[in-house]
């Protein structure tokens, strides 16, 4: 049995067992390794992707849930780092080891998709599921504000 999904805008068929966590399908079968494995238990957010625009933990989401739905990964933000979040991440030099940053960016992208002017509390709420052992949190917050400001300007 195969699962049909839209991955980063492209119709895709996955052959893995439908119970396989989406994370491993994306990484090992479909070959997009930007999404990371951190805990396997929805505790760290490294595997965050969007399912129909909503942030989910792909390590704990079976492939079958993505059937006939749309999945977006870090690779969808932009390849040339032109997304406002990527630009802000570079401007603030957010990443250290970088391993959790795909998840941080995808959680931030989901936040800004619905709220272009998030308060500190709203940022906390959207980002508290994304662990970073390097402690880049201070810069993550600053970069989200920078990106939000750019997105507001872009809209005006």
């Amino acid at each position: 049995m195969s699962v049909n999904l839209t991955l980063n805008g492209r119709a895709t068929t996955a052959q893995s067992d439908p119970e396989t966590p989406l994370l491993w399908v994306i990484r090992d079968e479909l070959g997009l390794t930007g999404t990371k494995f951190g805990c396997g238990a929805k505790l760290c957010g490294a595997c965050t992707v969007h399912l129909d625009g909503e942030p989910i933990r792909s390590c704990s989401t079976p492939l079958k849930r993505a059937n006939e739905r749309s999945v977006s990964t870090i690779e969808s933000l932009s390849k040339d780092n032109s997304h406002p979040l990527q630009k802000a991440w570079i401007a603030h030099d957010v990443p250290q080891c970088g391993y959790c940053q795909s998840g941080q960016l995808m959680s931030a992208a989901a936040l800004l998709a619905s709220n272009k002017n998030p308060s500190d509390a709203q940022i906390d709420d959207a980002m508290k599921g994304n662990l970073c052992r390097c402690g880049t949190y201070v810069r993550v917050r600053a970069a989200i504000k920078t990106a939000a400001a750019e997105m507001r300007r872009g809209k005006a």
Partner: protein
Amino acid sequence: MKHIELSRRSFLKSSAAFSGGLMVGLSLTAGPAAAAGLVHTPNAWVHIADDNTITLISARAEMGQGVYTSMPMLLAEELNVDLRKVKVAFAPPGKAYGNALIFGLQLTGGSTSVREGWERQRLAGAQVREMLIAAAAERWKVDASTLRAEDGKVLGPKGRKATYGQLAADAAKLKAPEKVALKDPSQFRIVGKPTKRLDTPAKVNGTARFGIDVKLPGMVYASLEQCPVQGGTLKSFDAVKARAMPGVIDVVQIPDGVAVVAQSYWQAVQAREQLVVQWDEGPNANLTTAAMFEGTRAALSSGKPIPAKKAGDPDAVIAQATAQGSKVLRAEYLTQMLSHSPMEPMNYTADVRPDGARLVGPTQWPDALQGAIAKIVGLDPKTITVENTFLGGGFGRRIDFDYAIQAAQISKAVGKPVKLVWTREDDLQHDFYRPLAVHQLAAAVGADGKPSALTWRGASHSVTGRVFGLPAEAPDGLMSEAAVPLYDVPAARHELVKHDAGVRVGYWRAVSHNMNTFANESFIDELAASAGKDPVAYRLSLLENQPRMTNLLKTLAAKAGWDSPAATGRSRGVAIMEGYDTFIGAVLEISMKDGAPQVHRVTVVADPGRMVNPDTVEAQIQSSVIFGLSAALWGEVTIEKGRVQQFNFDSYRVMRNNEVPAIDITLIASTEKPGGIGEPATALMAPALANAVFAATGKRVRRTPIKPEAIAQA
């Protein structure tokens, strides 16, 4: 320009000697310069292709601390190239890349990269610059002194110019100069300037390659079941059910356990759950944290103390003070075991064949990994290539390479390239933990409230004994870090006792600075309180002969607003330390809520000497503060029945975005030699927190983590 001469001759010779053989040792085909045409290697750090692609080699592993940028900055400063136009590659194992601060081993750790590379990397860049100039001089038949190197080109009289790429082939044939000129720091155009990290672009679009992302042709996946009790051994296993699971290729036994090998990672993990394994749990079967602490405490009196400092006769002074009934303060401090828990769980990819091996993955110590695996799989190290990836965090965990050995053993057993990926639970259960420690301090206090004598003894497991086989009687410098603080105490005895408490231990960010500074900076606070003195003023009174630390502490007090009262409900605690040649201090401002400390603000002042990338220095302090606070507030690995009781980030709590305090960082400009910055602030958090909790509650917590139960019991 100043000339670095004979003292550096041996370095220049060795790197020059290495350059001839470099093409052999370096797998350039896998590197970024592969498509750039013929690549020339004037020395081990600079590769120049005919098409002007310049690749600078980082001999150190990038685990977040910024060497992927700071090492090239040092090289580019003297090579006179635009940092934005170079590529960076990780060094393969090679003697030229040894770390002079760690016995010449190719090891990234100990906050040594900038300290060790400060002169060496600039010399390496200057050496190649001079070789390119010499090649141009020869080609143009002019005197080298009429030429200069600028932005990747050599420029000469009458508008002559040649790119580095055009000169590289000739330059690489020249004898490397033994004497090169280095810029005076006032001429630096790269070093010391806040510089954008070179690895950020790849880390914001998913293209940075970590170990877990490695894919080799024909690769299969492994998941490894290891004994839940350290030191246990395999008795027997039944793999019938596991073998019947989808995708399973093989189930193999290796010394560390039973590996399930499958077509995909998830299949391997699922099948592993079907294994039935019998373990002989060995001598640790009934081990508990309580017993580990008891044993370590007992070792303080029964073990052999190794001196770190002896001045005067503090025992006599304390005995006399006791006899006379004058003030003697005694305290015991306990620090808990901790896990590194980097975000990327341990993993490694190995392709071991009868005639050689390809090893790819994250490690802080590639040359040792290569040598160890060569022995274990029975190959000549020359037939083994090692490619380092980005490390998804290190913090000392990836100095050990047990996971790489396992991958190689599994690959050899199944005859295929294998990627071994640990689960998060594997990672927490099979770490090399920061050792627990017990410190006992005593001080005689004079009429002026100052210590007239101090005895100080700490016991913990020697990590260096475990990793390097250091003899039991030899001092372990990584147990005695910051053991002797800068305070002026007339008579003092500081000693370390090694004690194996039963659980394997590893280097954990800031290593023994953590335990020693928790004891020192808590005790000095206790002395201040006992003397009725302000904690900062008291420390300053003992630092009269320490101008650099005095300046640091005064700056810190000013930045933290120490002399004005904290807001209602807020309290402050301070801690200072010299570590890794860096002088550093922190003030924490907290409040108490439901018996637990809430950290609102952290003020850090650091004097790290000369800096390469001040923005990275700031980032590393932010990082260390958060890493150290996680440990101080919640961090503990506990053992029951020989088993680690923490499994994932629910039972091993680390700081989240919404829990981060305001962090104010001030860097003191300095022309002192560079100090390390990846680790030291970590060690300040537990004592500063304990001191703040004392200020808030009057309760002195003498064990980590500083959690509500510990505060309630204090």
